């Protein structure tokens, strides 16, 4: 998994590439946490994410909680059908903003 960050004022775009599983999810969490200073709009680009497990889902839930807490927003973009399917199965689709 690799992550590309793009900062534009108060908005941060993170383009994630590869698999978010039990082993890589903690790194995603660390990266988001480290870059969050002053960010109000977090955009996660999942165009090149081809796999996510429950560990990854928990990371997304944590990130969403962080953004909620600071009154910001979080958006997940370009998620593939499989991944949207998992969001639906777990009920996260009603909680995460998908574009």
């Amino acid at each position, binding site marked *: 998994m690799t992550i590309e960050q793009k900062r534009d004022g108060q908005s941060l775009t993170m383009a994630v590439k590869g698999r978010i*599983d*039990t*082993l890589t999810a903690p790194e995603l969490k660390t990266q988001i946490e480290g870059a969050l200073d002053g960010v109000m709009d977090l955009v996660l680009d999942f165009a090149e994410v*081809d*796999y*996510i*497990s*429950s*560990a990854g*889902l*928990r990371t997304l*839930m944590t990130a*969403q*909680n962080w953004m*909620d807490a600071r009154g910001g927003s979080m958006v997940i973009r370009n998620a593939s*059908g*499989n991944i949207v*399917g*998992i969001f639906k*199965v*777990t*009920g*996260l689709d*009603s*909680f995460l903003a998908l574009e």
Partner: protein
Amino acid sequence: MKKKSRLRRGLGLLRHYGWKKDLLAIGAAFLCCTILSWITSKMTGIRGISTFDLSAAAMPFFGFVLGIWGIIGFLLHYAIEAAQLFVLMSDTSFTFSIGTYVLATIGVALYCSLPSVLWYMFPLKGEEEASYPRLDTSSHVIKYYLISVITIIVYLAYTVLSSGFGFADNLQEILLMVAALFTQYLDTVLVVGIPLLIIVSVIRNRTITINERMVLAFLIIGVLASSIAGYMIYRNSIELKPGMFDAYESMMKMSADEWPENAEKLIEDYDTYWNLFSLMMAVMLNILLFVEVLFMRSIEKKVTRPIVHLSNVLTDYADQDESGFDPEEVRSQCRPYRYGYGEVSDLTRTCVDMVGEIDTYTKNLQSITAEKERIGTELDIASGIQHDMLPGIFPPFPDRREIDLYASMTPAKEVGGDFYDFYFVDENHLALAIADVSGKGVPAALFMVISKTLLKNQALSGGSPREVLTLVNHQLCLNNTSLMFCTVWLGVLDMTTGKLVAANAGHEYPVIRRNGGRFEMMHERHDPPLGLKDGLRYHEYELQLSPGDCLFEYTDGVTEAMNAEEKLFGDERLTEALNLTQESNPEILINSLYGSIRDYVKEAPQFDDITMLCVRYNGKEEKHGETKTARLTVPAGLDHLSEVMDFAQEQLESAGCGAEDMFSITLAVEEIFVNIASYAYDGKEGDAEITFSFNEEDRVVEMVFSDSGFPFDPTSRPQPKLQSDPGKRPVGGLGIHIVRQTMDKVNYDYLAGRNILTIRKHI
């Protein structure tokens, strides 16, 4: 060194009990002496003639009993007495100098401490150190007597010498006076001192020896006799010199100036009377004491000492361990008392005989115990062999998915007569047997071995249950003179159709659950047990099992398990217990039933073997096309996750799995493996085994995850609440939720100590 320590003991210096108790001892001694003095003063006139005092007897006594503290208490009393005397005498011509007082005090201190010192300085023959002063034996009585005499003589000698003979005119008078004092002192030391010592001894030892009783008895006789004699002398004196006592008493009430002319004569008569009395008392007491000692020495020689000796010998004998038992030793030690007449010799002989008998008995017991141990060991081995004869590996046929089977046998005694058995008669037919042999122990076990072997041989040669039982019955009846018999239930299950053919030779009714209903007892036809009557024809019946049906067989150890009130477990409780759960896994069913039985009987002992057999028919295994399998075993740790994922991906690719199914199955694999790695072994090391199988015909992927960690059924977890705010959701449960949502089938089993989770998906 020894002498020094004995001296210290004699002076009572070692007796330091803490200041409070010491002060108490001083006070007690002081009080006691004062009371004795007061009693003396009330006894008419005795003090008039001498320095005699009843507390004189208390002096050695306090030295004996309280040590230095008693002596101090007495000296205190003496000082106060002397001071009173000083005040009383100050207006008379009597000179009472400080020097006299000091000399007298030294004498008193000597008198107090000498008995105790002598007692401890000179232990008796046979004593290492002198024991606490006590009159428990005649030797101690003699010792006490001698010490008293010596002390009195020393004290009187000291008093006479230190006074410089100033109190008398001539030697005759001195000797007379000393003799009078001697007898008086001796009287009090015996009459007051001895009872005091015995009282203390009884308080200290909580017992009174026979010698102490005897001394007391003789003392009482002596005092009574002297009193009678004293009275007679009194009468005699009155007759000889009428009015003497009245005149003396009235004179004593006057002051010295008013004394009549014949005062000196009166005093002399009076003294003579008292001296006579005390002399007579001393003589009587001495004679009686002498008799007592003689008597007691004889008793001690003939009775007490032999008994003490015998008691010691027997105590030694009883204290020895088995190897040290030697009746010869006892015999030789008892020799001096064994030959003779009287009760003690009888007792000794009886004891020696008894020791001999105990020895013989012990030797017998040792050989019997050895024999018992040998039999016990052999029975253990036999029990082991018997246990090994029953198939004990479960699942017994892991590759036969048509059935699940479990059985158990809990023996009551070392070896029993119950058995169960199961084996494939041919590719398609499974024989099941359960049996109970009459009786218990070795005979039952032997008969069980014969029955089991015959049954299996006959069944394997291909007969139907009816034929097998008929033949085995015939064989068991040959030469069965001891009329052993055996109840058997024998069934043969067709694996493809589920048809069960069974025959029952007097065995318990099977319990069966069909079509997802409840366990019910099946009252089928019974024939007589095997081995009772030759030539019997046995009958069989058929039963159709559907997939999921369970058949349970057992022996009477189950239904006749008894609780402490001797109530049986019974058929009803059996079916109730089986119906407690919807579970159909045979191992779980049997274990839960065994738990119910244990809960029922509680601490009551198990009387009979408890044997159970349960089989679940799963239906014919669907086999179309070829099934590919692969297996991976890795340590259950997150660092092996990639390995597992690669294995799953590889297998799925080779099965031609599409991207979407690939995504969901690998996701399920990750979730399950992460679960095992994180929780199954609770931080300890362990393995996870993953079996992949794929059937090309129906295109079903099956993956089995197995671990030997803590039993945990993930499918039993409640579904996470999807509608609630996911931010407040507990972190767990999400993964297994995904698995259950995305897979076609998820199944959990706990078998033979392993968690087994199976997932299936059609691709």
